[in-house]
């Protein structure tokens, strides 16, 4: 049992991981074909898994409706939304546009899906404002530095800010756009690269842990 539940999956992970790693250094057609095959398998698995996800979604929302759980009305919209996209897609044979114009699917996509997605994305603008307000409460030295950098950036991005900068600090000979460029190109990039180097090395070590079976929590424990 341990062989099937533990050793064989670990061996598959190791062989697949090593082959994928090696294929990065081997440019031959064989390794290209191997990577393509893996990608195709992944797509097939994703298709089946998506079906599984859909069943899970329907099952959980159906349960909520049947039990009249709190907020069960929202669950009805899951089915309404699903039908609002799937039925037009079926009627339009998957096409969004024909010579006659928008198909029912195209209409649903443009006036339901895109509109809702756009709304969600637009909400982000308001959240950025409230987040900025929270981050501007100076509680520490680091928060003060963040505040100064953000304040200069905001100042430099609006014409009024540029006028204020030029009239107050114009004598320094440095435009606000120069200061912004320096902030973005020097301290911001330095911090970002530091994080990226840490992430890259962390990713390599995590991959090695998985490939060589040191990290196997994803399989559960003995």
């Amino acid at each position: 049992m341990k062989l099937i539940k533990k050793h064989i999956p670990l061996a598959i992970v190791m062989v697949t991981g090593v082959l994928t790693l090696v294929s990065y250094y081997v440019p031959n057609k064989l390794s290209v074909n191997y990577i393509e095959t893996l990608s195709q398998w992944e797509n097939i698995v994703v298709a089946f898994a998506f079906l599984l996800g859909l069943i899970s979604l329907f099952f959980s929302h159906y349960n909520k409706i049947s039990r009249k759980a709190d907020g069960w009305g929202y669950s009805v919209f899951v089915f309404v939304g699903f039908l609002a996209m799937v039925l037009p897609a079926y009627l339009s044979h998957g096409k969004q546009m024909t010579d006659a114009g928008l198909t029912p699917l195209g209409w649903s996509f443009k006036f339901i899906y895109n509109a809702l997605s756009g709304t969600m994305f637009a909400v982000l603008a308001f959240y950025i404002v409230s987040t900025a307000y929270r981050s501007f409460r100076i509680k520490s030295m680091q928060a003060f530095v963040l505040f100064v950098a953000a304040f200069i950036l905001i100042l430099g991005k609006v014409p009024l800010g540029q006028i204020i900068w030029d009239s107050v600090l114009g004598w320094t000979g440095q435009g606000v756009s120069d200061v912004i460029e320096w902030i973005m190109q020097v301290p911001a990039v330095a911090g970002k690269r530091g994080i990226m180097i840490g992430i890259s090395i962390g990713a390599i070590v995590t991959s090695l842990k998985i490939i060589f079976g040191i990290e196997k929590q994803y399989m559960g424990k003995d």
Partner: protein
Amino acid sequence: MIKTKVITLIAFMLFAAGSAFAAKPAPAIDGFAALDMPYDVGNAAVLRWPANPADTDDTSYVVYVSTHETGGWLEADRFAAAAKTGKDIELPFWAWNGSAAEHAVKIELNNLFGESLPSSVFQFRVTAEKNKKVIAESAVVSVMPVGNWFRLDRLNNLILLIVLIIIFFWAVSHAKRKGLFIRRIAGLDAIDEAIGRATEMGKPIFYVPGIGSMGSISTIASAFILGEVSKKVAQYDSQIKVPHYDPIVMTVCKEIVKQSYMEAGRPDSYREDINQFVSADQFSYAASVDGMISREKPAACFYMGYFMAESLLLAEVGATSGAIQIAGTDVEHQLPFFFTACDYTLIGEELYAAGAYLSKEPMLLSALKVQDFGKLIVMVSVFFGMILVVLGAKLGWTDFVQGLLHLFKGY
């Protein structure tokens, strides 16, 4: 009679002069060679020939390719005489010996003929043109592109990997049971506090694994953390909800959570709907999880994994609902949003280390040492590299500086 002879003679002379003019061949481009492009899959060729010092700004070269023995020429490339020298081929010094005194052109045959090449042998010729007139022409040469077995240009990358693998095995084989110092990570220490708070308040915990697939390292790291978090949730007999974006991640997380409940000795508390698929669309997912957080007012929210624009949409709603929030991602441009909206944030590598930190397994903790060694290698390389590059630039050692930069470049 004499008149006829004179006319014939003149006609003959004119014909001979015309023939001689028409037959005058264009000067040859000597040293033209077509070679298989090294370190590729076998769908490119590289053409090399010496640069002509007499070329002017209005001289251009045209490269032709054909799959036939004769004729069937297709224009593959056209460039100014000053461009495309041996130095312009993007390969490091240990894999390519290019000079500025020669032309070197890489021809991607799959771009011209499609992915399945129509022939195994390709003919090449090059002409030099000035004012749309051919002033020189090369001989026709042929090449058979073949797939190579090793990317020599990635040797620097391979050496770094081998060094890390050696350190990795050394660290794992010397795993200590006790006494290994791991610096405290406030965000992970706060997990107990968050779960305790949820238990006291009788409210659920939301664990959001992000929108990455199972192939993303951050999602894998998130799954490890979920295992430890759900074990603690089971021990405290609290509630956890894990809304998913990816059905495969959901399937894996289901097994992990189930296993954690079993390890905690609470298999009876495990419910199938802990892990729930929500949507495979980014904003639908964000809207749905935001709705759940707003309605259920969780005591704690964990955002661990790969996040894009939905990071702020989720974290801000969580913050306004009053939940204690712990986030972790390796997407560096989403980190500022988590910093401002969450109580604790794990930065990149801390996310990867979290599984080991929480599980406290000696082997996993020892592997964290490898990350430190890796960073040490990078720091030393950056420090000495910086000094050498500055010194080389100051002393005018262009080739030395270029060579040094090649060492740290990815190919």
